């Protein structure tokens, strides 16, 4: 007697919000391409069960000043491109970036302490050089973030940038800037479902529509807390599909930054030989971190190494084909 197995499908009634980064001239910006993420009505890549209208996007991290503490593997890969944000941006787009994540580290009080006006100039220059949407981060010091991001928001009015990070203690000024000049924000909370929901509520209470809020659940790298991130993302995504409106934001993960902080990616000598080849190790750990988080619901991966960018592009294509 042949057995008939009915495929087990869940009936979800929720949907992840669709969010578009970047605006073309017709939409009031200057971008030649935009990125839309979200819209899923099922868990990651379960095409048999629901729709996944958009591919997860790859944002490539670049900085306004040459990075100081980056692994030699990364510095060698980007070579001279990393010495100038415009050439870096162009190279990243050539390598397949859907968007750029611009970190304005130079504005940090302990780095060059660049002014907000200078930072805005840098962003303008990058916008002039490439056509992809930008995600822009301040120095991650509350007061300076406000100053820098407001200046950037104004200088790039209408571009639908994503401004990050909004955190529970520091979101008002940034949200106000996004509201006034037609941008999006990144809402970041420390690996906690309730805190994520709460911040989304606070931001939407200020009048920013939720289709302009990306959610960063905080990334722990492979070997350094990834299991916490993985599970909180699964919980957020399940809640979203079950219809909890305040968890329905697409998720952005800072994979590169976290993964390249770790010893495995940074240290060449004096480590066990079984850790393997140094030049390959860093990208591979970054790829595995990215893959794990795609499985738990990442909609935007922020990556660092050119090899990771290429491999994750191919991987996403494979995951999307069925």
């Amino acid at each position: 007697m042949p057995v008939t197995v009915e495929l087990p499908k869940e009936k979800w009634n929720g949907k992840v919000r669709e969010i578009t980064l970047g605006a073309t001239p017709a939409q009031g910006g200057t971008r030649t391409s935009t990125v839309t993420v979200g819209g899923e009505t099922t868990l990651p890549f379960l095409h048999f069960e629901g729709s996944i209208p958009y591919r997860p996007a790859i944002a490539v991290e670049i900085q306004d000043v040459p990075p100081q503490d980056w692994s030699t593997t990364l510095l060698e890969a980007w070579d001279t491109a990393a010495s100038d944000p415009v050439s870096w941006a162009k190279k990243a787009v050539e390598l397949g970036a859907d968007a750029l994540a611009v970190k304005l580290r130079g504005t940090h009080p302990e780095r060059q302490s660049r002014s907000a006006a200078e930072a805005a100039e840098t962003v303008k220059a990058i916008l002039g050089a490439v056509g992809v949407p930008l995600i822009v981060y301040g120095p991650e010091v509350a007061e300076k973030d406000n100053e820098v991001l407001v200046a950037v928001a104004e200088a790039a009015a209408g571009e639908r940038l994503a401004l990050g990070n909004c955190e529970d203690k520091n979101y008002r000024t940034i949200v106000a800037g996004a509201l006034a000049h037609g941008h999006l924000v990144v809402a970041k909370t420390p690996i906690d479902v309730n805190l994520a929901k709460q911040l989304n509520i606070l931001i939407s209470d200020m009048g920013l529509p939720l289709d302009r809020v990306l959610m960063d659940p905080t990334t722990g790298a492979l070997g350094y807390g990834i299991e916490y991130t993985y599970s909180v993302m699964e919980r957020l995504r399940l809640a979203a599909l079950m219809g909890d409106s305040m968890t329905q934001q697409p998720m952005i993960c800072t994979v590169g930054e976290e993964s390249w902080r770790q010893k495995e990616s940074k240290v060449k000598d004096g480590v066990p030989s079984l850790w393997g080849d140094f030049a390959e190790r860093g990208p591979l750990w970054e790829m595995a971190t990215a893959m794990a988080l795609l499985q738990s619901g990442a909609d935007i991966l922020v990556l660092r190494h050119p090899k990771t960018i290429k491999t994750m592009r191919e991987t996403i294509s494979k995951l999307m084909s069925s």
Partner: protein
Amino acid sequence: MALSGLDIYKLLPKTNCKECGFPTCLAFAMKLSQKGVELSACPYVSDEAKAALEAASSPPIRLITIGTGENKIVVGNEVVLFRHEKTFYHEPGLVVRVADSWEPGKIAEVVSQVDSYVVERVGMKLTLNGIAVENVSGDATKFVQVVQLVKQKTALPLVLMSANAAAMDAALQIAGPDKPLVYAATPENWQAYADLAKKYACSLAITDSGDLSRLGSLAESVIKAGVADLVLDPGTRNLADSLASLTQLRRLALKKNLRLLGFPILALAGGDDSTLEEQTILATELIAKYAGIVVLGRFDPTGIYPLLAFRQNIYTDPQKPIQVSPGLYKFGEPGEQSPLLITTNFSLTYFTVAGEVEGSGVPSWLVIADSEGMSVLTAWAAGKFDAEKIAKSVKSAGMDDKLGHRKLVIPGYVATLSGEVEEELPGWQILVGPREAVDIPSYLKTVWKAA
């Protein structure tokens, strides 16, 4: 699925003979449903009732053992789809494939490397779990020779992969007592493979690259033929299809209670022609999403370490972080003038710091504060690693008597605490160490010396 007392009662003789020590069959059934008594206490249950009760109390995904002794792979018995719902219990076995068509020298080398591969993380030794020998040549003699060679090089469990029943039989004659996994029964050959699995009392993998209904039919045939220990290979090989089929199998077992497909899953990650990146990415997906055994097409240490780390991460119990005991730890033979550092009792934090302090070669004292298993910044943000806690930990470790100096190194990430700690520990000088543990050796050798 557990049966209720009433369900069990229906299966009992209902004679109320009291031989079980209970006044009625119903009373016995009630106690049995609470697991307060063994079924064997009733001498009169029919074989049929026994079978029904056993099936009902068995786990939805059967526990399968491959190999023998301390290296054996034990998989199955999972109870949730998402680790936050409870935990994932049995780490998937990571097995490396060798082909009998390779040069014997290459096979021997790969097997030895797999056998001796061990990395230490968070105080645990992470290792690979077995070797899959594939009969690519199709030749029985060659297969047996290679199985023999592999057995000489390792005591790790084996997966024997051959489509030739005669070759499989010959290999099992030498490897059968080691309880390898027999791979694989198909709709064409299942009778012969079921016979082999029974003859050598080994677990049997079944595979059908059609759909899950066909896999279910195959499972039914093999189970009827008397094989109880199965492993399923749905035959999907790419990222999207594997994710779909493995998710469906896990759901069928747990949510639909489908016994026919309630077995661990074996999946192949990469063959001769896939790149290290492709293998690593597919294996990462398989570890996260429901594989019980992952057969890696190639061995490369660079690609093994992240998989072992990821498996360790995903299979930790989400309810309780791994912790070490608070207290005083010594590295080398520290004396009165040796440096004193403090950190938290989250295992990951402790082992990261301990590794560097040890590696520095500078004899040192390390106080571990009880942060309830939280990392430095998490504990600081949660109020479990504040100035008071730091001071108390240093005092209760008896450092006042053990040291000739009064200098304490705190983690760089909690630099803001230094003033408060100085207030809590009058007479002490608080030194702010580097942020990342990697920089501790150079710090101890230069900055600390000068302080």
